[in-house]
């Protein structure tokens, strides 16, 4: 069942279409994609240097290399530094059949987990988590695994 849903989801991120997007997920599932960071802009707010309130604005291209070498979407995250290197982030993953909105704290940017707090289209009102593991730093690449519940 889980594998079936994974296939459905991975297929779904490739095929565009508003009609399909109108339907929501019918069960839990996992989406595995990769990303390549294309932009990382730090906004120094307040004290000079890294301090609470500074912002990282990150833009990534999303891939599912098992299906196509081309980007299937992109992600935008905004992280606000809270204490030392800890950040509170919010972001949106723009996938072919909908958007997934995530949010939560990040302590280590090499490996972190955010909560899935909603979505649109196929991912309308989804919940769950997303685990991001950095696989390289220059350019920064990540493995992104969504574990979704309905």
């Amino acid at each position, binding site marked *: 069942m889980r594998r079936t849903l994974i296939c459905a989801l991975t297929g779904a991120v490739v095929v565009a279409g508003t009609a399909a997007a109108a339907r929501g997920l019918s069960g839990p599932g996992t989406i595995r994609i990769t990303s390549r960071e294309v932009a990382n802009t730090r906004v120094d707010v307040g004290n000079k240097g890294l301090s609470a309130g500074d912002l990282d604005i990150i833009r990534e291209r999303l891939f599912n290399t098992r299906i196509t070498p081309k980007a299937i979407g992109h992600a935008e995250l905004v992280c606000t530094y809270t204490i030392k290197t800890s950040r509170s982030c919010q972001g949106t993953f723009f996938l072919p059949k909908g958007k997934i909105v995530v949010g939560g704290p990040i302590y280590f940017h090499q490996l972190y987990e955010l909560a899935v707090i909603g979505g649109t289209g196929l991912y309308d009102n989804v919940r769950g988590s997303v*685990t991001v*593991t950095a*696989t390289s730093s220059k350019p920064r690449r990540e493995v992104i695994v969504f574990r979704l519940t309905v």
Partner: protein
Amino acid sequence: MLAARTAAPEGSFRNRIASLSLATRAFAASLVLAAIVAAVFAVLVLASSNLRAATKREARAKDVTVETLGLEKLVLDIETGVRGFVLTDNERFLESYRQARRNLPAQLATLRRLAASSPGQAQRARALEDEINAYISDYAAPLIQIARENPPAARAPLAFVEGKRRLDLIRGRFTDFLKAEDTEATASANAANRRAQHAIGLGIGGLVLSAGLIVGFGLYLARSIRRPLEEVAQGAGRIAAGDLSLRLDEEGPGEIGALTRSFNVMAEGLQRNRSELEAQNKKLRESERLKSELVSIVSHELRTPLTSVLGFTSMLVHRDDVDEASRRQYLEIVDSQTRRLSALVDRFLDLQRIEEGRLELASEPVDLAVILREQGLLYVGPSERHRLRVRLEDEPLEVVGDPERLSQVVGNLLSNAVKYSPDGGDVEIDAARHDGFVRVHVRDQGIGIPESHRPKIFTKFHRGDAGATGISGTGLGLAITRDVVEAHGGRIDFVSTPGKGSTFWFELPVGDGEAPGEEMRGG
């Protein structure tokens, strides 16, 4: 077999079956049995093949389990190595990780190969492989890198939680894979066991059926052979006891039918041979009787004239007081008896010639009227008690034949007419042409012929009651007469009334005035 049976329609199935020989029936039964045994054997072979396939499947399941456990161990080695390195930052822990990664492709290939024969397992194996590869590429390898760059990040609880999540997923895949393998192996074994059970059942049934057919056919053969053989044996016993009229029912399978038919042919042959032997025996007895009669007749007929000849010649030799008249009278008697002996011998010779087919007849125109007159005067004229009456047409009664033999025929009939009418009376001769024949009647007023003697009146040496009544004769005259008449192409018969006389008649073809130019041969 001896009883009559209702015949089945010609060409019916039963008839066709009945016409089959025992050898054909045995061959057909052997074919049926062979087919049954072959079918049973085929089922058993199929079941054995299924069991062998199930055994192979079970062995493969064991191999799959071993390989799966080996793969699981490799995954655990990877996990252990990564965890050890992350926690201790000691590269030594990565040795097991690297070793496991080196062995992993071959192990995965082996599993793929083992699972290839089952589409479901092949799919599960691919999923398991994907999961392991994802674990390594998405988690283990990055985590080692993270541990080198930022050990605290790699030691964060999330890292272990993520690792556990992924391992749990992989373990779940392993469990599913092994369970499915076990299920398939069990199903295969169960199916093979069921087929084996069915095959054993069919085998037992087939063997029982075969045994039943063998026993049944044996009983059938015993019944088909024993009963007819017993009847043939009984029949042979009855025939040996003399009952040659016995016939067996010729129904029965091939060889049995042939046996009973041969038996019946043999019985018919024996019966025919016995009839022929009885007929020959009867002829022999009759011949013996005739021979005895011949000896008696010949002895009697020869003795009487010989006695006269011996008596009178002795008297003439030993007595001197015989006057000339008496001497002449005695010599005439001797002459007469000698001629009688000569005639008797001639008759025997004629009879022998006739029986041997050596009677030679002249073939020349003969006027029967002349013969009738001459023979009438010769045989009847001398008798004082008989009157000769001859009624003939004026024209000649010509036939073609031997005048001496025809004279003998007429003489015999006239001699009998005189002999068998001892009280005298008329002896009538008449002859006339009739339908291309000249028919001659010789009629007397004698003692006639009893009904019981008529069938044998033309038989050699048959004299009826003549011997008892003192009438001389050999019993050959009429036999020779009939043979001579028939040798001339004619026929002879008689009518008679006991006490009133007999009429013998014969007829010969009318001659055309020309002799055929060759001799006739009688007998």
